[in-house]
């Protein structure tokens, strides 16, 4: 608060105007916070209500007799298909898929962004344009051709298995999902890093070249340490998208035990018959969203820290 670069001060001068300005700003921020929090509030209070209260009470009212049962049920008892052991078992499936997919796509994006801005070559812009446009392909229209290719890779994996004793992960549903998410995530990660590195001073890279630093040395020692904010943005984006993906997850998880969280959550929530247990559904949704929420909160810290590190570059 003490560092005074607030433009309002410069323009107005009067203390009163400044105070009013601050009140307006805080008021607006609080108002919008309400807008964003409303659905979360509804979900939270619902998850602590009994079914009786949900059916007869006000949606926005606080629970009269808060109960933790819906959460316990969502975690350990609710039925996902025929197995009634809650959604806890699907966490690991999702994490096994999401972490590698996010890491690989983010690293590739960083490298691509670095090449496209600091090592330009003839046609670099076209390459970037093509990769960028790839973000727009509707996933529904790649579902079947991708399945065909994954199926062939799987059969090749079986051949490899017979020939060499290992399939190198080909045909494994988790590996398939990682692959798919990397393929369709690269466009975005490249976009994010390319736009960030665009503003990064090229002089620093040139100076390092003069000093004889190699391609990877410059990347590791100069680019990466200054990439914290964009890493955070990219990881958040990728993590959220991949964690929440339903289409690919439901289609490619196959008949194995690789079913990710979203599919399980969908099976809990999207039942077509029976009394809909809204409280359990809401609790399940909150549990399923915990990792992403956690990433946001944790990343938020590094976000600021990264920004501070980035500010030095000025």
């Amino acid at each position: 608060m003490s560092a005074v670069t607030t433009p309002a001060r410069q323009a107005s001068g009067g203390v009163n105007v400044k105070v009013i300005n601050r009140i307006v700003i805080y008021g607006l921020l609080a108002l919008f916070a309400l807008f964003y929090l409303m659905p979360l509030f509804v979900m939270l209070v619902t998850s602590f209500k009994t079914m009786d209260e949900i059916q007869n009470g006000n949606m926005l009212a606080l629970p009269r007799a808060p109960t933790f049962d819906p959460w316990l049920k969502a975690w350990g008892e609710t039925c996902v298909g025929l197995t009634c052991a809650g959604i806890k078992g699907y966490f690991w499936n999702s994490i096994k898929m999401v972490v590698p997919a996010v890491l690989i796509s983010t690293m590739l994006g960083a490298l691509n962004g670095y090449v496209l801005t600091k090592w330009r070559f003839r046609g670099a812009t076209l390459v970037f344009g093509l990769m960028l446009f790839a973000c727009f392909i509707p996933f529904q229209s790649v579902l079947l051709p991708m399945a065909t290719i994954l199926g062939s890779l799987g059969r090749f994996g079986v051949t490899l298995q017979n020939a060499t004793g290992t399939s190198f992960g080909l045909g494994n549903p988790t590996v398939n999902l990682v692959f798919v998410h990397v393929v369709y995530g690269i466009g975005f990660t490249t976009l994010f890093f390319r736009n960030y590195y665009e503003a990064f001073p090229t002089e620093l890279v040139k100076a390092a070249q003069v000093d004889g630093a190699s391609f990877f040395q410059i990347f590791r020692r100069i680019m990466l340490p200054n990439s914290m904010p964009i890493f955070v943005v990219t990881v958040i984006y990728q993590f959220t998208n991949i964690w929440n993906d339903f289409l690919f997850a439901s289609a490619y998880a196959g008949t194995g035990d690789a079913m990710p969280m979203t599919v399980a959550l969908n099976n809990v929530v999207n039942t077509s018959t029976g009394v809909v247990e809204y409280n359990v559904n809401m609790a399940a949704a909150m549990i399923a969203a915990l990792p992403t929420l956690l990433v946001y909160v944790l990343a938020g810290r590094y976000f600021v820290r990264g920004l501070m590190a980035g500010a030095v570059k000025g």
Partner: protein
Amino acid sequence: MLRKLLIGTALASGLAFAAHAEDVKEVQMLHWWTSGGEAAALNVLKGDLAKEGYAWKDVPVAGGGGDAAMTALKAMVAAGNYPTASQMLGYTVLDYAAAGVMGDLTETAKKEGWDKSVPAALQKFSVYDGKWVAAPVNVHSVNWLWINKAVLDKIGGTEPKTFDDFVALLDKAKAAGVIPLALGGQNWQEATMFDSVVLSTGGPEFYKKAFNDLDDASLKSDTMKKSFDNLAKLVTYVDPNFSGRDWNLATAMVIKGDALVQVMGDWAKGEFNAAKKTPGTDFLCYRFPGTDGSVIYNSDMFGMFNVPDDRKAAQVALATATLSKSFQSAFNVVKGSVPARTDVPDTDFDACGKKGIADLKAANEGGTLFGSLAQGYGAPPAVANAYKDVVSKFVHGQIKTSDEAVTELVKAIDDAK
């Protein structure tokens, strides 16, 4: 189990040894029955198979009344990873069979006598090119009224026998301040109700010609226009918030007594059962007025895929268990539907179930058992969905008159054929 296997193989020839020694004792089952009652019903099958030593690999994908599961199935088939079986509906089975990815259960069918016990109307979908490719699990019927008895008594109503009776009854409810008709404003619910309206307005012959044979003259006829008028009349009795409502919430309105009646398939009975309501005392199941004697059906089927040889034994076990009388009875008591074979005793069923079984039998013998167009048993999905579009647009006012609705219906069905 292992011992049994060893004895079996010891008796068999050397060749059979190679084929049987590695039999996979597992069924992979894609389905969208994830909610309490349905899952409980399916668990009976899982238990039956476990007794025979088969493990159950569950592949549930809920959502959109099977849409999500069908998308997943398409991707699996494209990848060449067929599940042992998948829950499927009507024309979808035939499409997959035409693509040559279904298995062949004819031998089992012969041994178990499915030809005789399963109604011919169902065999149209479970038999392709002379081969059994699917095992029907149940028969649902859509031309039902579900009425809250307390509300009916309060307004002094009786069972409506004709469409005009029905309208009079709805008027009574309206006058008494109850929501007369509980409807979920989603296209399949509106179209499901319209199936019954058409059967009631035009009679069995007309329904078959228009909605199973897609006969142009019938679709264009004044009877069809009259049906749309009747639908419009019914829609005046719904509450203003009906649009987009899920069907089970509409059923809940009847269960709680907020509404008098819902027009819905017999899966609605599962909701009443789950709410511990008894037919006859708490709720009543009547045929949609003017449709007594006919049954508009749909059926859940387990499509059997052309799995590798080492999984065929498990598939046969699954199919046999599915069509066993004990499972058919146990499953359908819970699900609200009736058995897919006509020789299952109705002892365990409630009053509505008993009526459903008797009606199915009569309709099967009398030739008044028709596929529901709204539920994908009247015509292929392209046509069925074009039909749902028109009905829904009519209900929600994009299509303004019944004349226009008839024109649009003919155009849409022509276009989709």
